[in-house]
């Protein structure tokens, strides 16, 4: 441990740490666009294809960081143009075009390197090129990496809108007059920069890991592009630092250590991401299953009570629920206060909840039979599932659309007096007035009142009513509402109520 801390005081270690941090951030940012544009393979191709650029630069200028950089970027751009040209002009599949161009460029580079060592007696280490040599980072390399990182960040900030729209919807971007092709090549230029700057740290084979893995990780963690970019940069930074430190501690090659670290973060997120992780998905599925079981038990208990049947093991068999799930369901029903603590009798709230389920089931069956036109035999199973899933607002809308049916297709009554307000509008006599209460039960009623432009706290006068409709005078306007809807609207009466039928 003391050794380790001592190492961190060495300049080469500090340089290595700085270089890999910068590379992590830069690749993390660019990677978001590369991944979302389905260009991961292009990133890989560019990385391999810059080798001949280095060779030509060496032949022309000799050993110079700036010359290597320029040569590599030019080679990268040439590759990008070549790939895009083939994809647009030649009848070759996209990924095949990428494969053809980058293997050709890489091979030319390798041939060039062996030519140099044979004829000029200079040994260029292909291994450093492939896997990086972060521990040998020089000050000039570091400066270059720093400048490139700054340039990438500035470019993404300034051109963010263009990058966003041309990545999300290139065709729409074009119709907006945004130069989509130019942006593509600009991104290729940035990508070439990033690849060249990453060579020292992770090498050409693994640079694609720095581009793709942090971005893919970030995409599992957020649904907003700006956040994805920031998280991805953070993931890149974290992978680079942790990977490098691990490599120093374990005395192994830094490039692969960084790539493996990035992959471990990715795997952790795949499993444990709060919304999109496999674990969270399993929990949600399980919670839904538990709720469905619980509600099925509730409904079965309600039915037995209605029919005066005794609750016994037969009921459980009919539900096809394991003993464990049955016991868990009962426990949860008691926690909801839907079931009495000492017996299997429903509480008043429990009866209400069960009636909601029955109502959902029968309304949905009616909808499937009358609106969709399905057979009576086909609808039960679908309703069994939907009774657990349909929110009250949709049910009320279905109810209204169906014209408030009394019976379902099997002839059973559809429970109706659910969540009935204390003073329903339907109980106001013709000629009497009432104030619309601000306290309405359920989103559906509020939405309907909003649609009719009736405000809470204002006065309504009932002018007419028949078996199905209620007519109101509201600020000089005549509004007619279905009686069943009026049943659910809460008012403060000014006059007398119609006597309970």
């Amino acid at each position: 441990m003391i050794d380790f801390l001592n190492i961190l005081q060495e300049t080469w270690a500090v340089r290595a740490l700085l270089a890999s941090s910068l590379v992590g951030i830069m690749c993390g940012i660019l990677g978001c666009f590369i991944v979302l544009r389905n260009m991961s393979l292009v990133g890989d191709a560019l990385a391999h294809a810059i080798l001949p650029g280095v060779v030509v630069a060496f032949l022309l200028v000799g050993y110079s960081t700036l010359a290597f950089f320029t040569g590599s970027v030019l080679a990268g751009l040439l590759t990008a143009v070549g790939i895009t040209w083939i994809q647009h002009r030649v009848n070759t599949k996209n990924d095949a075009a990428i494969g053809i161009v980058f293997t050709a460029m890489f091979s030319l580079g390798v041939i060039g390197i062996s030519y140099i060592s044979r004829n000029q007696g200079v040994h260029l280490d292909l291994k450093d090129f492939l896997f990086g040599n972060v521990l040998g980072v020089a000050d000039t390399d570091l400066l270059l990496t720093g400048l490139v990182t700054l340039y990438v960040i500035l470019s993404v900030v300034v051109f963010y809108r263009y990058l966003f729209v041309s990545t999300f919807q290139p065709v729409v971007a074009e119709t907006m007059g945004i130069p989509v092709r130019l942006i593509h090549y600009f991104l290729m230029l940035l990508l070439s920069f990033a690849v060249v700057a990453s060579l020292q740290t992770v090498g050409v084979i693994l640079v694609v890991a720095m581009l793709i893995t942090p971005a893919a990780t970030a995409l599992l963690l957020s649904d907003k592009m700006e956040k994805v970019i920031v998280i991805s940069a953070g993931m890149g930074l974290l992978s680079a630092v942790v990977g490098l430190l691990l490599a120093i501690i374990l005395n192994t090659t830094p490039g692969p250590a960084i790539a493996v670290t990035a992959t471990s973060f990715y795997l952790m997120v795949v499993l444990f991401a709060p919304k999109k992780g496999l674990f969270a998905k399993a929990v949600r599925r399980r919670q839904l299953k538990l709720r469905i079981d619980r509600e099925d038990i509730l409904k079965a208990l309600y039915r037995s009570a209605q029919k005066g049947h005794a609750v016994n093991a037969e009921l459980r068999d009919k539900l096809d629920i394991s003993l464990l799930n049955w016991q868990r369901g009962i426990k949860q029903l008691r926690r909801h206060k839907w079931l009495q603590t000492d017996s299997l009798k429903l509480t008043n709230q429990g009866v209400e909840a069960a009636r909601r389920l029955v109502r959902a089931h029968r309304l949905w069956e009616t909808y499937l039979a009358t609106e969709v036109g399905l057979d009576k035999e086909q609808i039960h199973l679908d309703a069994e599932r939907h009774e657990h899933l349909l929110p009250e607002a949709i049910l009320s809308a279905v109810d209204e659309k169906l014209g408030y049916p009394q019976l379902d297709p099997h002839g059973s009554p559809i429970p109706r007096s659910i969540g009935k307000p204390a003073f329903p509008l339907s109980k106001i006599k013709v000629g009497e007035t009432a104030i619309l209460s601000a306290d309405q039960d359920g989103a559906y009623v509020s939405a309907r009142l909003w649609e009719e432009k009736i405000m809470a706290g204002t006065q309504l006068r009932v002018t007419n009513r028949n078996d199905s409709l209620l007519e109101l005078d509201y600020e000089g306007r005549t509004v007619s509402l279905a009686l069943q809807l009026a049943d659910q609207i809460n008012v403060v009466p000014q006059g007398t109520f119609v006597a309970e039928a």
Partner: protein
Amino acid sequence: MSTSTVMTIEDLSVSYERKRVLSNIYLRIEGGHVYGILGPNGAGKSTLFKAILGLIEVSAGDIKVNKLPIEAQRKEVVYVPQKTDVDWNFPATVLDVVLMGRYPHKKVFSRLSSADRAKANAAMEELDITALAKRQIGELSGGQQQRVFLARALCQEADIFLLDEPFVGVDITTEEKIVQVLKRLASEGKTLLVVHHDLSTVTTYFDQVVLLNQRMIAYGPTEHTFTEDNIAKTYSGQLPILHQMGVIDGK
């Protein structure tokens, strides 16, 4: 209401790989109308849009928007693509998408202003999607998704709207809402071209129709143009299906 010509298409022909998709199309679009672009599958309706938008090379012909080539009129023409052409997993929220409508109005180095945001909010308000502003677009229903893209188009404040199948896969409330917005825009002098499939709603949705089947069959006011005769010409070969659907009489 303006009645001036906002778009002219003269002798337009488009081919894909030597296969003719559109032949010798002439079309004059008048401002302040809702046009239904009708025709069977493969009639070239989407191709017509792409040609108008300058997205594809045309074999021959000339398209002018407000007497200018499309490149000079980008801001005035807004395109609402088919829902199937969208990557719904993209990390974009409803507000992000609606704000995109402001992009054509911004210079490279300028930021979105509070006026831009106000316009986006107004568009979301009109389409009843304000409450969804922070949702990722993949979490919406088909109807809500269509509303988002229409809100973006509103936000762009263009003169001419091209909508590709906006009524496919949306609920009835959304369909009514879209029609209402289209009619409001037309009453304000905007022009709307709508690729459409459902012949039963043509007369209520559109005051002008364009009947297309690789050639121009007919175009003009719906009452005079959307005739049995013209429909039969447009959908020749698919007549039995149309009889069955009761769209046209079996006379």
